[in-house]
């Protein structure tokens, strides 16, 4: 299938999201779509798959002008869109998920289980994967759930599959498997649109790349003929300095110590310490227990054994409220689920962690709050017209800045950041890295959990690697390499 989108314009009210985008997709190619958050990638793909129409411009498929009026039409024409939030019913089995809404049944309405099983097995075989069909989908890993989505697309004879950030929650092994399947699909003539922020992956798997910026397609190039720097330049529209700002840390005394922290079946004997002004990177594979350790330290979840010391004193943390009181702050990995109240304004969200200081006698001092929020917005360079903008209307990068502002404002001693830059654009990432340096310069200690290895290497002063709930290695900044981290992360030494 050959798709040509020409000069696509789209506005939502006064908000011009797309202002002239050209995009072509050749049969059997893997085409990366890249751009900062808010550049218009998702809108473009939503127009292609019929979620809403363009205001201007035309779409031709195999030479014929096309305009799908709804998602179902696009699906029937062979276009599948696998979104970042997967469409999985966790309580239903893999097989039920595969056939949801298109169950095969006989004249009486009784399901033809055998036939469905056969078809599912055939698809899994084509993809060269094996997931038990009677397993509950909720029990499957995110990687497997993604495979289920791809299988669903293939069962509809999809000729074009659009994947939005497919690897953001996958382990390296699962990513490898996904790439294998992608290669098999393209060799069979299926075209793939690959939306991602991960440059390394794009250079590994894609044939061409289209970069979008501010609703315009900046350039389309063959991967072989372009470079990392070139793409970044196209994306941000300017030369980017080094990806990670230089760190010149000066350390103070030990601020936090964790001794023998254990939670049965989750993590065991976790001991480490961190000094003022230090960034401690926590690396490891998805599911190794990194996030769980941090959640227990911050009092969201409980732990069975061990102690946490701040300033040399053992403290008891039972709830996030008590953790915050002790000078801890926690930026969760899921900003929409746990970081923000989406219906709240920026002001109300930032105010939430600081309520006590604005309301010494229970009454919120509105002016104090506004002043404070104004300062935080400027400090974190949150792009917004007003502090009354609802969090739900912000781009991912700006949402993340609001979450960070919430906690930076509490002047914590130890700031725990879980995947601080996941799913946000290069520009915002850099601003966050600068902020981390600024915070450590003022003596704050940062624990950074990250699945992004270059980020761990680029920002950490020291790196702990977690493997199956235990610390499997510790590396100083100078000696750390991707290979060494991966060796520890996979249980080698």
């Amino acid at each position: 299938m050959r798709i040509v989108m020409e000069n696509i314009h789209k506005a939502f009210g006064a908000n011009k999201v797309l202002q002239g985008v050209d995009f072509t997709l050749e049969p059997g190619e893997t085409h990366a779509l890249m751009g900062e958050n808010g550049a218009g990638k998702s809108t473009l793909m939503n127009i292609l798959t019929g979620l809403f129409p363009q205001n201007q411009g035309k779409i031709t498929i195999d030479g014929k002008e096309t305009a799908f009026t709804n998602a179902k039409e696009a699906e029937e024409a062979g276009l599948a869109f696998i979104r970042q939030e997967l469409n999985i019913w966790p309580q239903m089995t893999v097989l039920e998920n595969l056939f949801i809404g298109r169950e095969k049944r006989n004249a009486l309405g009784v399901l033809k289980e055998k036939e469905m099983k056969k078809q599912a097995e055939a698809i899994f075989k084509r993809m060269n994967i094996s997931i038990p069909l009677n397993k509950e989908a909720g029990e499957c890993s995110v990687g497997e759930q993604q495979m289920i989505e791809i299988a669903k697309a293939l069962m509809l004879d999809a000729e074009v599959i659009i994947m939005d950030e497919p690897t953001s929650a996958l382990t390296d092994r699962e990513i490898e498997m996904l790439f294998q399947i992608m290669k098999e699909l393209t060799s069979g003539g299926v075209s793939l649109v690959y939306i991602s922020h991960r440059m390394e992956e794009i250079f590994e798997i894609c044939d061409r790349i289209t970069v979008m910026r501010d609703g315009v397609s900046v350039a389309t190039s063959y991967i072989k003929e372009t470079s990392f720097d070139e793409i970044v330049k196209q994306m941000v529209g300017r030369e980017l300095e080094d990806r990670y700002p230089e760190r010149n840390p000066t350390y103070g005394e030990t601020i936090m110590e964790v001794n023998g922290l254990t939670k049965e079946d989750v993590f065991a004997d976790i001991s480490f310490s961190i000094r003022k002004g230090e960034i401690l990177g926590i690396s490891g594979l998805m599911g190794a227990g990194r996030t769980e350790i941090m959640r227990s330290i911050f009092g969201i979840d409980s732990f069975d054994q061990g102690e946490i010391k701040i300033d040399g004193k053992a403290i008891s943390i039972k709830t996030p409220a008590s953790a915050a009181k002790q000078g801890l702050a926690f930026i969760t990995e899921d900003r929409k689920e746990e970081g923000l109240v989406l219906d709240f304004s920026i002001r109300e969200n930032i105010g939430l962690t600081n309520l006590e200081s604005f309301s010494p006698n229970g009454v919120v001092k509105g002016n104090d709050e506004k002043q404070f929020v104004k300062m935080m917005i400027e400090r974190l360079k949150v792009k917004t017209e007003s502090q009354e903008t609802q969090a739900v209307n912000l781009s991912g990068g700006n949402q993340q800045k609001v979450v960070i502002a919430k906690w930076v404002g509490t002047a914590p001693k130890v700031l725990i950041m879980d995947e601080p830059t996941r799913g946000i654009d290069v520009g915002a990432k850099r601003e966050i890295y600068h902020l981390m340096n600024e915070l450590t310069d003022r003596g704050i200690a940062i624990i950074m959990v990250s699945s992004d290895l270059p980020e761990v290497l680029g920002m950490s002063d020291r790196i702990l690697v977690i493997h199956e709930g235990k610390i499997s290695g510790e590396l100083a900044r100078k000696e750390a390499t991707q290979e060494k981290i991966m060796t520890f992360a996979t249980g080698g030494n």
Partner: protein
Amino acid sequence: MKTSKLTTIWSKLVPLLALFGLIVVVTILNPSFIDPANIMNLLRQISINGLIAFGMTFVILTGGIDLSVGSILALTSALSAGMMVAGVDPILAIVIGTLLGAVFGALNGVLIAKGKMAPFIVTLATMTIYRGLTLVYTGGKPITGLGDSYAFQLFGKGYFLGIPVPAVTMILAFIVLAFMLHKMAFGRKTYALGGNEKAALVSGIKVDRVKIMIYSISGMMAGLAGMILTSRLNSAQPTAGQAYEMDAIAAVVIGGTSLAGGKGRIAGTFIGVLIIGILNNAMNLLGISSFYQQVVKGVVILIAVLLDRKRS
């Protein structure tokens, strides 16, 4: 941005416009509706539902529900009447009765927050428990002979500057609760809890404590309403307050508060209380059978929720 601002203004105006429309229509149908005497009568009639609905607003804003308010009203009414019969000072009995309402509400809150049970189930259970306790305590018979304390009589039947005292109580409660909800940290936490409980917890808010507080407020308002009813009837009725939770929930919903939590205003609830009160009052004035009144009330609730859906 502009459109969203318009829609928020619109969503605040719809209940208000409905209220004015209703007043105009009713006045045309029967001009005696706007007689000051009838208006004062109306205000007294709505005060009990008003108090309960204000408390319910906090509960529903957090995405919860409190079905036990009618039973709390009956139980506090019986207990305070019992105290008065036993010779306790009536004013003291009123204060204790109101506080007992808060205690019964707090028990709901503890079960919900610490027991991690669904508010619907917990308050369904305590609704029966509190009602059962009322029946046990009263032996199923009204408690009478509460004496003729002037202050006690005033609480349910008196006037202050020409306004019925129950209405004054309701308006004072409204002012205090609206201040708590919109000007105090506690109110912000209430909205945060309803908007995203996980985020509220992770932000260091003592979620359990806020929940217990909220159900205490609901129980306390029910208790206060119970005191007014006791004074008005000059007795405690074991079956008092049955299905009062439904009128309270209806008022909150008509006022535009989302049952999913996080969105809504207590001023809207006041309008909802007025709409329900006027409907009842007007249909009585117009001589419409109380059987039809129930049908109309149900239809109004449906329309309110439908309009709410359209807006969001």
